[in-house]
């Protein structure tokens, strides 16, 4: 990858503690332990959206995909708060008092945490990927209290200062603790119980992340949904990766039920969506794509029923959008269609029926969908604007198989596993070169750098996914759960009949 390293390769420094050398105020960013491969992209995008350069905030070598903690230096408290609020993958940003490799080290390095005798305080205990008993927790807390002897009152509810003691232990790539201190029955595991943590942080609670957006706008609360509605968390991550901020001009050329534009609107974007399918736009009596926006008092998006393959004939504007965010139709949940029909199926339309004639559509091959999407992005985005799209893919996948465009630079590819072999990737591209109308066709032809083959690969994605699902099922059957999970309707009916028969017999 050109300028940003692929996010999946940075899990090497698991054994060293994160310590930054600068003397400026240090902040501890606590990420949610989800979407691991998206966290760096998401955090960097939030920084760039605040006009900060990621390299001035944290050392790239300190970032580890498997560690949810990162020491940063923000220019001021206000910026840190803004960054925390802008992303759904940050749980909290703390102000660091001390960092140590062991509890004792952290205690020794700590500084007084209250500044006046009237300041109320409390200490909370937090552990990542391990557990401490109540008495162990209390012992560690008292090491800090005995050293600094804060004179202010202890207050459990809304104190002026809340300090957190965080012990971080390593996790496996699956997310499970590498060295759990206790087993399931609660008895200590001797080999792990005295193992030192990766890091111990003593820090004051400072700013909560934007997690509340996920709960506030969850799909469960929406009136209008469809089979292609995307989960709220991922669409917020996508919009953040597209640098959507208040008054960004955002386009989704395959808007469907509008779930991506909904998130863009939550972030303050001015949204435009197009789709060929009038059924998703209008809905069945629920008020269609506008419904959820009205329910949540968000500004209405601009919806146009139009055909992505004819985008350049319909849209006059060039280089106006700040972001293009979309989940293109790959034919897995919903097949793609475009206007027109094959020569032999075309019939003349009588004049009296022209006004209510339903235009015929034809299959829109996935390879063309992608090539058209990149062309629309190259033409529609401002220089510096971003295209973010999803592509379902298998685990063994090469970046070289992604479509490219002269005007767009690949920035990130983040993988979300959806099963053992299946998953989807979020692709982020940045527009780096101005649009030249005359070169449209020339650029489009160069869309697939590995030739027709990779276009075919994308084209065959659906069959590949079906095959992978089959494999996964077989794998599951071997392990003893797949058979039960994937019973066919026929099998279930048969079993039910057998049960009834059996019951009759025994009665």
């Amino acid at each position, binding site marked *: 990858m050109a300028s940003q390293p692929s996010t999946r390769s940075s899990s090497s420094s698991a054994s060293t503690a994160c310590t930054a050398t600068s003397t400026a105020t240090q902040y501890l960013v606590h990420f949610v332990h989800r979407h691991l491969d998206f966290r760096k992209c998401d955090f960097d995008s939030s920084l760039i959206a605040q006009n900060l350069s990621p390299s001035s905030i944290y050392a790239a070598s300190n970032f580890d995909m498997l560690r949810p903690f990162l020491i940063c230096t923000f220019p001021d408290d206000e910026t840190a708060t803004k960054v925390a609020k802008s992303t759904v993958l940050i749980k909290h940003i703390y102000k660091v008092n001390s960092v140590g490799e062991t509890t004792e080290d952290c205690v020794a390095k700590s500084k007084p945490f209250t500044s006046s005798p009237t300041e109320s305080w409390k200490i909370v205990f937090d552990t990542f990927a391990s557990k401490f008993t109540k008495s162990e927790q209390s012992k560690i807390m008292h090491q800090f209290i005995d050293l600094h002897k804060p004179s202010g009152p202890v207050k459990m509810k809304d104190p002026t200062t809340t300090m957190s003691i965080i012990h971080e232990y390593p996790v496996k790539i699956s997310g499970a603790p590498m060295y759990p201190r206790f087993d399931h029955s609660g008895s200590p595991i001797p080999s792990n119980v005295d193992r030192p943590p990766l890091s111990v942080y003593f820090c004051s609670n400072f700013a909560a992340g934007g997690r509340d957006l996920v709960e506030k706008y969850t799909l469960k609360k929406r009136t209008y949904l469809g089979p292609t509605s995307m989960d709220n968390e991922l669409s917020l991550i996508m919009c953040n990766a597209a640098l959507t901020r208040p008054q960004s001009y955002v386009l989704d050329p395959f808007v469907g039920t509008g779930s991506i534009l909904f998130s863009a609107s939550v972030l303050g974007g*001015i949204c435009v969506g197009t789709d060929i399918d*009038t059924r998703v736009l209008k809905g069945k009596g629920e008020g269609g794509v506008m419904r959820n926006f009205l329910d949540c008092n968000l500004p*209405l998006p601009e919806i146009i029923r139009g055909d992505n393959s004819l985008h350049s004939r319909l849209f006059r*504007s060039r280089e106006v959008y700040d972001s293009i965010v979309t989940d293109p139709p790959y034919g897995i949940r919903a097949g793609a269609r475009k206007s027109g029909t094959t020569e032999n199926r075309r019939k003349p339309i009588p004049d009296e029926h022209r006004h209510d004639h339903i235009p015929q559509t034809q299959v829109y091959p996935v390879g063309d969908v992608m090539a058209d999407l990149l062309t629309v992005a190259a033409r529609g985005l401002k220089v510096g604007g971003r295209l973010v799209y999803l592509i379902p893919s298998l685990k063994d996948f090469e970046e070289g198989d992604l479509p490219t465009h002269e005007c767009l630079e690949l920035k990130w590819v983040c993988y979300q596993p959806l099963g053992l072999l299946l998953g989807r990737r979020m692709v982020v591209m940045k527009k780096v070169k101005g649009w030249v109308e005359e070169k449209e066709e020339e650029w489009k032809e160069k869309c697939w750098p590995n030739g027709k083959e990779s276009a075919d690969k994308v084209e065959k994605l659906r069959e590949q996914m079906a095959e992978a699902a089959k494999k996964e099922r077989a794998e599951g059957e071997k392990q003893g759960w797949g058979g039960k999970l994937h019973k066919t309707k026929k099998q279930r009916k048969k079993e039910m009949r057998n049960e009834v028969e059996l019951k009759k017999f025994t009665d």
Partner: protein
Amino acid sequence: MRLLTHNTLQSPLTSSYPLKITCTALRHIPSTPLTTDEGPYDFVRNLLENGKIEWDGVTGAREDLKDKIEELAVGDLQLPSSQPSPDSPDYTSTLKTLHILLLEVHVLEGTLIDKENGRAFKIDNGIPNMILLEDEIER
């Protein structure tokens, strides 16, 4: 459909621009403009100063919707006949008018008409239907 969108659309048949608007239902939905260090009405100002707003498109749409706009009672929303420069005296008030016209006025029901061949594209529930019939695609 906001007039901002009208400003970006052309006839997919003949590329005729601007599309004529006929309208039976118009609505005004206020929205809060963003002020940045560079000045007020950030969104429209940026588009305008980067040459991304077609002045003929806005003035044409204003003319098409003249009677309906009067009914909205949001002022007469007059615009200069050609695009003003940022140092013209009424610039801020022009930006305000542009903000209302492009972002706050919604065409709910009506049609967009290709002035060259009269083909009408229906606007239903605020959604213009720009899909072409199968015999209109080749040109």
